[in-house]
């Protein structure tokens, strides 16, 4: 182990210690997280309101889903081209294909023009592509709209947050106190009062002030270029309608063959996590009307312009070079693997990266920032239990991918010392305990 290895091992141990401190943010977060995981996994096997359990629903479509994702990845170039063509020709979308994240950042800035404020939905893709960091660096004001993220932003919260239910760990009293501190308004400590406050104030702003909005896509249909976006709050509905320009930023892996496939992806995400998608938006063009003498005019009540930035970055390379994590491209971002993950349950928010939380976020960090980043995120907390694999609706073996990253870490001298000692003893003495 080199000096960097020791340093990172100490960083991780420091994180564990902070998690043990009763009042630390890490601790608070973890306490909530344990409960969240418990409820999520439990909910998989409950019938709830449907005739089938979430698990049964996912199992019913699993084979179809896997086949569909494999088909896309085997022919990714074809689907990307087909999708871009149809989006341009049929949907009046302005489409950019960015080879790199950096290219995507510049395209976004150009699309932004003189605007200095971007309203965004919860978008892991935007984090992954680094748009948020880039915009912040360029003094663009980011306004969250998902209530969870609004709260996280209100608290100026530094740690990565849940992908499903961000901000759910804040107590009602803390939220009410924070709103008083930041906005000078005293609210009754009730969820409905908080929601009502944002409905009365922020909804108005969303209806009237949004010039540029940013969302990702749950899936995009190559067949007709339709963007599918699921949500429960209605913020995405507002962001995609009550705006001048709606910009969609996502990786090319979001493309699926047909609009039915795209809806299936959204349905699986909703059912598997037991989060209601009260609205599934299917967007096939900017708002338009032909009611005046049949002449088509864009921008009636909804978005005047819809801009799509499709990003490649590592994706085509992973396929062409058969990289060990290429299977991750099949991912439909349902985050189930995070809820059932042994390491994530045990280590909460310290098994995470700046891209979010859990093994997938660590993998993303590895892809963008290399092996040291992954080790620092808690790579070696992973027990290779493969719970992630067993629960994944598209059967991605994240555990196996983590194993490959561990091997690379060892090669780079970043493996925790006790583990390395065992290995040395096995290889030399043929017994780890001699």
């Amino acid at each position, binding site marked *: 182990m080199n000096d960097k290895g020791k340093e990172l091992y100490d960083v991780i141990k420091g994180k564990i210690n902070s998690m043990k401190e009763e009042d630390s943010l890490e601790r608070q977060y973890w306490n909530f997280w*344990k409960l969240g995981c418990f409820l999520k996994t439990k909910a998989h096997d409950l019938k709830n309101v449907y005739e089938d359990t979430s698990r049964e629903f996912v199992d019913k479509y699993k084979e179809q889903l896997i086949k569909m994702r494999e088909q896309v990845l085997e022919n990714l170039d074809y689907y990307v081209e087909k999708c871009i063509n149809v989006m341009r020709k049929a949907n009046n979308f302005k489409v950019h294909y960015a080879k790199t994240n950096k290219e995507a950042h510049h395209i976004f800035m150009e699309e932004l023009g003189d605007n200095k404020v971007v309203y965004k939905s919860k978008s892991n893709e935007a984090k992954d592509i680094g748009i948020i960091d880039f915009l912040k660096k360029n003094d663009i004001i980011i306004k969250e709209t998902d209530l969870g993220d609004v709260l996280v932003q209100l608290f100026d919260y530094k740690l990565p947050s849940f992908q499903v239910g961000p901000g759910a760990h804040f107590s009602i009293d803390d939220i009410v106190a924070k709103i008083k501190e930041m906005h000078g308004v005293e609210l009754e400590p009730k969820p409905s009062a908080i929601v009502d406050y944002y409905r009365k104030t922020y909804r108005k702003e969303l209806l009237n002030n949004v010039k540029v909005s940013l969302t990702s896509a749950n899936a995009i249909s190559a067949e007709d270029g339709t963007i599918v976006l699921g949500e429960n709050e209605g913020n995405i509905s507002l962001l995609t309608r009550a705006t001048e320009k709606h910009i969609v930023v996502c990786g090319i892996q979001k493309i699926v063959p047909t609009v039915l496939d795209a809806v299936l992806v959204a349905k699986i995400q909703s059912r598997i996590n037991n989060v209601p998608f009260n609205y599934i938006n299917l967007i096939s063009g900017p708002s338009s009307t032909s009611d005046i003498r049949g002449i088509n005019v864009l921008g009636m009540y909804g978005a005047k312009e819809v801009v799509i930035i499709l990003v490649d970055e590592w994706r085509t390379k992973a396929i062409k070079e058969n990289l060990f994590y290429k299977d991750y491209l099949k991912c439909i971002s349902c985050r189930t693997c995070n809820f059932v993950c042994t*390491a994530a349950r045990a280590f909460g928010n310290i098994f995470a990266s700046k891209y979010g939380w859990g093994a997938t976020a660590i993998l993303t960090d590895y892809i963008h920032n290399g092996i040291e980043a992954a080790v620092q995120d808690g790579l070696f907390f*992973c*027990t*290779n239990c493969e*719970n992630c694999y067993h629960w994944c609706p598209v059967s991605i073996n994240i555990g196996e991918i983590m194993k490959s990253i561990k*091997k690379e870490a060892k090669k780079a001298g970043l493996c925790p010392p*006790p583990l390395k000692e*065992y290995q040395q003893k096995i290889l030399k003495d*043929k017994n780890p305990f001699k």
Partner: protein
Amino acid sequence: MTKLIYLGCLSLKNYEPTCKNAIKIIKFLDNEYKVLDDAPCCGSLAFNISSDEELKTHIQYVNNWFRANDITELVTICAGCYSYLTKYYKELLGTDFNVEIKHLLQFITEPRNLEKLDLQYSGKKLSINYHDACHLRNASKPIIEEPRIILKSIKNVNFNEMGYNKTNSICCGAGGGVYSIFKGNSDFNAKAIFDNMKKGKILLTACPFCYTALKRIKEENNIKKSIIKFEDFIANLMEGVDPIN
């Protein structure tokens, strides 16, 4: 042609009575099986961090040892050994690897063995749970039904499924060498396994890694339920000893 009892280094180091029990069971069922003193480690703890070349060198060493001792079949009591011997040895050595690998659970499940054992519990009806270890449920030939067949065959024993079981079982948090570096992983997960027991008075595990974590958590948290290794449980029943004591 030698039939080997492959105990695994963790059990050999920490669980000598269990090793003796396992040997008793295996030899009772087939006396041709024997233990050899200098059996090398399968390499389990090194697999997650070693390069293919390092692994291959180690695996070849172990295979040469098997050959030198004319090992054609082995029964292992270690979930980790079973998982790695059946996966990587075949993968990396191909047809050069000619040892038939069985886990004790598979060995016991063979009909003539189950019949010969004819197990029963002599006390008041005993309610048990079985924990599916990752090493067994994830193996290239998963061991999932075998323990259930065995346990259901035992007279006066009531087998209960865990809330999360088979491929969805909760991991004890000790796998992948994590126990040697971040024990905290088990603090939450091993405890969750006990919480996940339905009805059972005792929890059985066939993995020495899981046992190590579960035992510690039981003691630290004053958990009343017993944690018992599969081999010990079976050996006790064979001898009419109450496994709970």
